[in-house]
């Protein structure tokens, strides 16, 4: 195999890191942890990955990928197809629009951005799920889940940051 083709394979594998980490977080979020009530309030790990990559490498987290990842999550969790995909599409559009306020700023601004995105996404999911299932969904666990999501964000962001540093790099087209 020539050097150039090895290089292109490496380059290609770099480019799929955002997709791969997002799918990995979807799978991790489904693990059957033996903690009472945890599945109800589990932090929304994939949302963190979508937010992170849209801010730092929007070129590697395009709209179509966000949509596909959402559909995959819907298939896995038994939700109507399109529910999570729709939420991720809206998050993608919103974050892409506000990206210039988040890039190159201190971490707490980046985190605050996520703290705005999470409740909006949670409220939208709650509303859509309630409409689709024709019953008001519980609100208390959603609130706890939201808080946990925001609180856990730095840990996941730290891990993703290292993934980016080692594997992806920060070069981004305008």
């Amino acid at each position, binding site marked *: 195999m020539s050097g150039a083709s090895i290089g292109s394979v490496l380059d290609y594998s770099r480019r799929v890191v955002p997709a791969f980490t997002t799918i990995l977080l979807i799978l991790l979020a489904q*693990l059957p942890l*033996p903690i009472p009530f945890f599945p109800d309030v589990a932090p929304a790990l994939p949302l963190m990955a979508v937010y992170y990559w849209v801010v730092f490498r929007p070129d590697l987290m395009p709209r179509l990928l966000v949509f596909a990842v959402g559909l995959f999550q819907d*298939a896995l969790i038994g939700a109507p*197809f*399109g*529910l999570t995909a729709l939420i991720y599409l809206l998050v993608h559009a919103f974050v892409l629009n506000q990206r210039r306020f988040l890039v190159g700023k201190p971490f707490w601004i980046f985190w605050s951005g996520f703290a705005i995105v999470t409740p909006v996404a949670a409220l939208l999911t709650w509303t859509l799920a309630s409409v689709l299932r024709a*019953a008001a969904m519980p609100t208390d666990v959603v609130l706890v889940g939201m808080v946990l999501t925001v609180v856990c964000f730095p840990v996941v962001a730290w891990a993703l940051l290292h993934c980016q540093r080692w594997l992806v790099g920060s070069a981004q087209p305008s």
Partner: protein
Amino acid sequence: MSVAGLAVPVRVWGQRFAFLGLLAIAFALMLLSKAETDALERARTAIVDATVPVLDVMSRPVEAGRAAAQSVESFFIVRAENERLREENARLLRWMLMARQLEVENATLRAQLDFVPEAAPRAITARVVADTGGAFFHSLLINAGAQQFVRRGQAVVSHGALVGRVAEVGERSARVLLLTDLNSRIPAIVESTGDRVIVTGNNTPWPSLTYLASSSPVSAGDRVLTSGHGGVFPPGLVIGVVAEASEARVTIQPAVPLARVSEARILDYGVNGILPAPEDMPARSAAPVAAPAPAAAAEPGR
């Protein structure tokens, strides 16, 4: 305007259309899913089937951690546990004697009546590889599917108590709808009063009892069992105990802590009558259950 000048607005409009198009697709898919479109359900089982082997591997460390935690825990309570087990053993030995006598008596009576015994259920044991859903959807994924003769509608138990029913079946995976899910309806009977009720999931950890007569003397602590009505669940499986019995609502606490279910037994009572004959079942994955109705036989003294 030059061609280059047009290119940017065209791209912007293209992106907007792509965004709106995907939004429209998402909405359309949601409506089609709501209508339980066959093609979408097949796509879902295909995706789950492809993912379950990965989840199976990923969930092994969780299981190992759980086992390690349990062994550490049991090390610290070994004395108390020993005491408890001795007591239980003494109690169970008395029950065993009584059960032997009853067995003999039953056999005699059945022989006199030419009684045709109920077939013992076959059971398939599967690992829970994912606890999916969250606040809005309550289900589990297990690593057994159509290849292991799992069928839609079969009852799923863990530690002798009901967990839910099989809702979707792939080739080597299946989704178990937990009894706490909004879509779960289980015909049941309150053991102490004999009231027929429906255990209705409400997406909280405490399903409610519906169609209970308002004059019923149900109180907290009463056991709730499956009634077998409707032919989906076998009768006599423990569902849980009444947790709250007020004027406004009656809720139950499921007998199994649903978050701790790591292995599930799928009971095949042949209630739907479309199952293969016993000789077609693979011997490894289909061991008969010893007691015909494990839950009903357990703890008769309570």
